[in-house]
Each structure stands twice: as C-alpha cells, then as structure tokens.
C-alpha cells in the first residue's frame, strides 16, 4: 500500500512518514506541488496526503488537476493543512478531497488511523 506525502516542511513529512512506515505503508515525499503531480503518476500511490500551502503549485491546484485527470482522479486525497477556515475546508471537499485535517488540532495518531480506514474495506 503506497502513500504519497505532499509536504514542504521536512520535519513534518519525516514524522508522518515514520509513523506510516511503522504501520506497514510504503511512502514517498513530494516537497512541492509540481513534484506531487509527477509523483502521482510515477509512484502511483493508493492515497495522497496533501498540504495546502506549497511552493510552486498550491495544494488546491494540485487537487483540482489530480481530480480532472482521468488516470489520477481515483487516488483518494486527505488534506492536511494549517488552514482551519471553513473556506479552505469547503473548497477542498468540493474539489474532491476525501477528508480534511488541521495539523495543530489533530494528534498524528488520528491522521494515521484515518489513513488506515482507507485500506480496511
């Protein structure tokens, strides 16, 4: 099971990656929006964890490009952001994000548990 972590903050990406690896997931980190789109094709993840504020291409753009690409749109996306406004939550969900987490409001464990639910079914 492969997970693509799109996160420009190295420390956050790393702790997320380690916690996911421990659960048995294969992971890859993309540090910006452009890399995220490329990796979505080359790495073909089963799930994407996506930050919103990113260099080169922001998260919402990545999300909309992904969802309008017939080959990539099936990849479920969990948005993991510092933005907690209803506006960005609504936009993300309407663009097709499967869930939305505010980094500071949720323990890492909750995020990992959420990821696991995608692979139980």
């Amino acid at each position: 099971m492969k997970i693509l972590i799109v996160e420009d903050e190295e420390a956050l990406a790393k702790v997320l990656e380690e916690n996911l690896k421990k659960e048995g997931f294969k992971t890859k980190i993309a540090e910006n929006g452009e890399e995220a789109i490329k990796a979505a094709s080359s790495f073909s993840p089963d799930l994407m964890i996506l930050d919103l504020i990113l260099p080169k291409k922001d998260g919402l753009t990545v999300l909309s490009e992904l969802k309008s690409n017939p080959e990539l749109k099936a990849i479920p996306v969990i948005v993991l952001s510092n933005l907690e406004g209803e506006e960005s939550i609504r936009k993300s969900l309407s663009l097709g994000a499967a869930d939305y987490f505010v980094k500071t409001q949720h323990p890492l464990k909750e995020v990992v548990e959420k990821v696991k639910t995608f692979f139980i079914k």
Partner: protein
Amino acid sequence: MFWNIKNKNKEELWKSENKYRALVESATDAIISSDAAGNIVDWNKSAEKIFGYKSEEAIGKPLFFIMPERFREAHLKGMERVNLGGERRVIGKTIEVSGLRKNGTEVPIELSLAAWEEKGKRFYTAIIRDITERKQKTEDFEKFKLAVDNSTEHIIISDSEGIVLYLNEAAEKITGFSREEAVGKKAGVLWGKQMNLEFYKAMWQKIKYEKKPFIGEIINKRKSGQKYAAAISISPILDEVKNVKFFVGIERDITREKEIDKAKTEFVSLASHQLRTPLSIISWYAETLLSGDAGKLGKRQLEYLREIYDSNKRMINLVSSLLNISRIELGTFAIEPKITDIPEVVEDILSELNLQIKKKNLDVEKIYESLSPVKVDRNVVRIILQNLLSNAVKYNKTGGKIKVEIKKGGGSIFIRVSDTGHGIPLASSSRIFEKLYRADNAKEIDPDGTGLGLYIVKEVLKRIGGETRFESEEGKGTAFYITFPENI
C-alpha cells in the same frame, strides 16, 4: 369762543402732558432729556434703575456725568458742533456705547438720540436701553459658534428629516461638500448610503423614535467618491413638547485608526499562521516520543515530555484564539451552517478535557433534550462550548460538578453550562466579556489565561444572532446561558 379754544387747548395740552409723563415713567428704557447746554432736565424711573441716581440727584447735572471718562470729550465736542449748526453724527441714530453708573461700574447701553425744539429752545432726548443681557447672549453665542465652526470634529446640524442646516469647516473638509452645497439637502443622500439598510434603520429608530443619542462607527462617502470611516454620535435636540427640533451629529475621522487596526490584525493573522507549522512539529514529535515508538522512555522523561506536549497544546489554543480574533476583527469570520450534532461536539471537547477533569475529580452531568441534529455553524458551536467547558473545568474546585444542558425549542437552541467553581466576583461581572479582561480571582487561579475566551464567545455568538448571559456567585459557581437560532 377764542378763550374757549385756548382753554380747550390748555386742557388737551395738560392731558397730553400727563399721557407723556405716564408713558415715560412706565417705559422700560431710560428716557433722559437735556437742554442745549447738556444739563439733564428729565429723568425717568428706568433711568434711575439703570444708572442708580434718583431723579432729584440727576436733574440739573450735565449729561456727561453718566458717561465713562473716555467718552466725555467727544460728547462735549459733539454737542458744541450740533449747537452751532454743525453735522449731526449721533442724532437720529442708534448706537452702542457704555454708561457710567452711580456705583462707578459701566453698563453697556444702546442709545437713540433725538433733538427737538420748544419755544425756540433746543432739547435732546436720549432713549437708553440696558443691553447687558443681550450682549452676554451675543458673546456666548459667538463663543459657541466659534467653537463649533473651528472644532476639529465634524459637526453637522440637520432638521428632523435629516436635511442639513449647518456643517462646520471640518465637516466641509472631510465630506468635500461646501456649506452652500450641503445646506438644504439630505445628509444621507450627500455622503451616506454606504452601510446596509439595517444600520440606518437602527440609527433612525434610536434618534427619531426613541429620541436617544446614537453612537457608532460608520462608513461615509466624500464628494469625490472616496470612502472614510468615522466614529459618530448623533443627538436629537428636543423642543418643550419633546418633538425633535433638530439633530446634531458629531463625527471623527477614524480611517487612519482603522487602517492601523487592520494592519495590526493582519500581522497577528500572518504570525499566527506562521507559528502553526513549528507548533505542529513539536506536537507530533512529542506525541511520537510519548507513544514509545522511538524507544521506551523513563518515568521522568515521560513526565517532562508530557509537560512539553501540554504547554505546546496551550500555545496551539492561544494561536487559535488569536486567529479567531483577527478573523472577527477583519470581518472574515465565515459562518457556514451545516447539519451538526451538538452533543457530539460536547463529547469531543469533553474527551479533550478528560485529563484535567480526572485530575480535579470533577463530576460531569449532561442533559440533552429533544435534540436532533440542527443546522448551525459547527465551528462556532465548538468555539463556544470549548471556551465555556474549559472555563468550567479550569475554575472549578476539586471534586466539583459541571452540568451541560442543551435543549431546542421555538427555533432556538439553549445551552447552559454551569459549574460549582470559584465564581465571578460582582465587581468583575460587567467586564468579563471584554477583550483581555480577567477577573481578579481568575488571575490568581490561572495566571496563564489570556482573557480572550469569553470575548470570542460573545463575538462569534453575535455573528450567528445569538446571545449570552450568566449568573454567578463568588465561591459557589457560575452558570452561562447561551441562546442562538437554529437553521441560520
């Protein structure tokens, strides 16, 4: 026949003399006559009153003795000139001069002078009015007018329909309309219409129907189209029967203050967002360490790490509060109602507070009545309950009680959160919803509090049309009552 006529004339003359006397004596103005030499020959009651001399003291004295020294020379020269047939500068005119009273003080007077002749002799009669009061009034009026004209606040006077009667220089300057352009037109049409209808409705309700001053902040438009922010206070001026005579509006330009405020708030917003990344890094690493995933930790290591984690959590909450405040103050606090299960929100918050609840051994009672999910802004409900519940925990006593009651009815949601804690001192009760205000006992119990929580509660409630109030007894506990409409 001739005799008769003569006698009749005498009689009539006598009658008319009497009439004249009566008139002169009852006049409220001083009536003083002098002969050509300027010696007083007639002095009425009012002259006595104004100058303080009895008639017997005055008659025979020269006129100049009721004049201040500085006028005397001109008076004597003038009389001489007129008596020699020269130019009459004062006769037939009304002038304002000063008189000299018996007691040596001066009195401002208005003087009308007439010259007349009888049997070849010339006489002068002066009608003199004491204008002390009038002068005082004029001076007062001038003073007030100067103050209003030159005030740096914008002052506008309108009639009861809002038609401009006056605006001062500052108002001309800020609105861009000159007095000539503005007077006679509706203030609302000239520079208004920038706020929503509700605002103006509330304003007119207050000043015209409740007849009370309206105080608020408003956006107006200059003649050039540019907008400005102003702090205004409009007061109705009422007549004897309590009808609105006119309105006085005093405005102060606060555009610059608003800009500074906005810049400050934007800075807080930006800084808070920037703070969140390191805060989540600390939080997640501490969490990973605490879980033992990075190796087993000793008891003290765990204890210290828990402190780090908790403090970090506190900082996260503070940043959240700051962000909420900057959203409220920037007007970007979005309200998005969606179907929300309020008890679920309560449970969520209680589980976050579980550690502190257990530490204080608190008993939490929950009463939910006829509560199907309702359409409200989940975020707002969360903010309100989070603040009230965490206060109920924080300011409770060990072994105390917390009661959460939620019910629905008549299109409204009612929430009551009560505790058996330290209570709010009476002296603080009127201020606890103020930003950054903290009650004295709250500062003692929890020195780290921010004084932001209840302010946020009040402000977010305002945005969903809700209200809050509380009952409290120091040492016994507090109950907060929240009401807000569902489906907004």
